[in-house]
């Protein structure tokens, strides 16, 4: 029997990211026989992605602008470590055309679409026009920016808004993660919303151009994974439903989208490929759509990078998107595996669901809750995959995105995937920080979710965080009383805590809770506002 091994696409790859996605990409590098170089800030010196990499280069202090967003430092690290290629992950520099261009200029390979494509599609107005040019209907709205500096422009803006209809959204052309976005219910609010949205966009993205889009409600958020090679061939590897969101950021994704017919899927995939082809897409990208209650799909935007939720497509479609990214970046054609996945994309066999465990308090409007992890038990077993960069005892720094783990499940159908999700989440134990785990447990048990009745308003309509937390108070009080009870009725001078729950090392570590200078974790929310440059990876 002959054993054939694929020649590694590259010798050494630098991963310009941190956390779970850096770990995930390092794993792909090692699977493909490539060396992986990590980069890190001082907040991540001991992080899992640094430990797993073959080499690691320090970028600077914790703030992203002084570390992971420094194009010069990342390129220098790649050159110094002998890397041939840079994978940007998501967030940080992944959708900065200037970064992709700097990588190209340094004679290295950027694992993603060409800088010109990132540039063109990064501007949402540009992307809307590209879609319109190939007959793909975008969410109704303007195809140009809406300035309001002069009185005649204001009058024109009001006229445009009246044509689009209320309620509508003011959106930033350079936007992402809901920044620069304003909801407008009548023409009196319009001018103020345009000014506020523009100012926020200018401060967040350095680009204050805003436009108008009708608010589609209720709607589902459905996106299509695309892969493209250097011959210009682009295929769709199925779609994902990402309707469960809070603050325009995703909490749960699944593939395929529930309730679509094969014909509807085929149609949606074809729309995405048309937009991707018009834009000259290469490597991996995702086209996002809204699905209106009448079933119509409206194009939203293209994300020119690996998506956080790419794993559900991998599980449902049976391929490794990061592997594909590397071979495509090396100039190889779309693999047989990718082509086969595209072939069955409209009628996949299994179903996959991902939940994003974030360091947030779902009883306090998903407020950030960084800190030291004191217990970290992740689920395993049939059909379960966990992507994380956290190990027990790690500190979740306040400087970055608060995603701590992605728990993915796969089953032969959606019902089985939900059963596995419920089981996997019941196995999950995290202490030291509050996470979104209770929310995900709620979803996994919800009849409406099981019925596939989802929309982007689902969280607001169904989730009552304080009430859900209150339900657990009784059990917590019982557990505390049990723990302190001395079974021998004797010495009360020592607290009795369930032995299996005690981690002696963890008890000596400081937990950052609430405002305070300890560990520099004083105020995550303020840090997020101040660090306004990073476009969160959603």
């Amino acid at each position, binding site marked *: 029997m002959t054993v054939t091994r694929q020649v590694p696409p590259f010798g050494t790859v630098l991963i310009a990211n941190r956390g779970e996605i850096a770990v995930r990409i390092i794993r792909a590098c090692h699977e493909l026989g490539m060396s992986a170089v990590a980069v890190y800030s001082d907040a991540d010196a001991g992080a899992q992605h640094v430990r797993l990499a073959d080499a690691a280069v320090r970028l600077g202090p914790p703030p992203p602008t002084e570390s992971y967003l420094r194009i010069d430092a990342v390129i220098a690290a790649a050159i110094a470590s002998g890397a041939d290629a840079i994978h940007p992950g998501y967030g940080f520099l992944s959708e900065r055309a200037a970064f992709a261009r700097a990588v190209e200029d340094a004679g290295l390979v950027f694992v993603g679409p060409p800088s010109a494509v990132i540039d063109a599609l990064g501007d949402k107005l540009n992307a809307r026009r590209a879609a319109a040019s190939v007959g793909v209907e975008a969410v109704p709205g303007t195809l140009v920016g809406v300035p309001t500096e002069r009185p005649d422009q204001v009058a024109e803006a009001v006229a445009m808004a009246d044509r689009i209809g209320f309620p509508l959204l003011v959106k930033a052309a350079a936007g992402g993660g809901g920044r620069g976005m304003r909801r407008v219910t009548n023409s009196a609010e319009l001018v103020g919303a345009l000014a506020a949205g523009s100012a926020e966009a200018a401060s967040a993205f350095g680009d204050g151009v805003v436009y108008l889009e009708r608010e589609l409600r209720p709607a589902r958020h459905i996106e299509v994974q695309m892969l493209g090679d250097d011959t210009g061939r682009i295929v769709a590897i199925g779609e994902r439903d990402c309707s469960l969101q809070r603050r325009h950021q995703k909490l749960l994704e699944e593939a395929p989208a529930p309730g679509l017919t094969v014909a509807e899927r085929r149609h949606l995939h074809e729309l995405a490929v048309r937009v991707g082809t018009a834009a000259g897409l290469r490597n991996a990208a995702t086209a996002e759509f809204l699905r209106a209650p009448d079933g119509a799909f409206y194009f939203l935007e293209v994300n020119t990078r690996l998506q956080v939720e790419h794993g559900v497509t991998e599980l449902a479609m049976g391929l490794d998107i990061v592997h594909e990214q590397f071979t495509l970046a090396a100039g190889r054609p779309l693999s047989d595996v990718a082509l086969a996945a595209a072939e069955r994309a409209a009628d996949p066999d299994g179903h996959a669901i991902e939940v994003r465990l974030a360091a947030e308090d779902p*009883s306090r409007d998903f407020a950030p809750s960084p800190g030291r992890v004191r*217990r970290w038990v992740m689920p395993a077993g049939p059909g379960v995959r966990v992507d994380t960069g956290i190990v027990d005892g790690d500190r979740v720094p306040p400087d970055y995105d608060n995603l701590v783990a992605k728990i993915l499940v796969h089953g032969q159908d959606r019902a089985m995937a939900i059963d596995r999700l419920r089981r996997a989440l019941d196995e999950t134990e995290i*202490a030291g920080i509050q*996470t979104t785990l209770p929310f995900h*447990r709620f979803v996994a048990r919800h009849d409406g979710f099981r019925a596939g009745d989802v929309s982007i308003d689902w969280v607001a309509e169904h989730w009552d965080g304080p009430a859900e937390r209150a339900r657990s108070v009784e059990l917590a009080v019982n*557990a505390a*009383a049990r723990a302190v009870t001395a079974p021998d009725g004797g010495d*009360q001078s020592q607290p009795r805590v*369930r032995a299996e729950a005690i981690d002696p090392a963890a008890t000596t570590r*400081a937990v950052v809770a609430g405002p305070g200078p300890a560990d520099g974790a004083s105020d995550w929310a303020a840090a997020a506002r101040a660090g306004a440059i990073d476009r969160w990876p959603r």
Partner: protein
Amino acid sequence: MASMTRLRVTDRLSGERLGDRAPAAETATAAPQPNERSVVLPAVTPSRVRGRTALEVVVAGWQFELEVEDADLADLRDRATKDRGAVIHDGPTEVRAIIPGRVISVDVTVGDVVTVGQRLLAVEAMKMENELRAPREGTIERVATAIGQTVEPGAILVVIR
């Protein structure tokens, strides 16, 4: 030592009293549902209130910071706190132990005249010294304990008239 009859559980952050529980075997054996398993860890920082055990409890993914103490003891402390604010009355005042422990010093004898806040004695518990001070001024009528004696919550230690 003390066999607690009830345990009081308090929310550490809000100070809210969440409930009293019997520490008896039935609560220990009442197995929680598989989806309601709890994780209990000693809190990173101990309670500021003497006699309280600070815990981090996680149930169904919710993180709670709780403090547990003997409910009778807590009641006594609350009463003592109330007494301190009350107007001086003529009857005798009984100073009782508010935590279980061992008397490590007695600073007054019968006939001593004491002022408010004056140290009367000290009880050691959980390796901490807990001072008992005079809740009112008066004359020591009786000293009901001695160094080395083990006391239970509620036991009369000193009477002031």
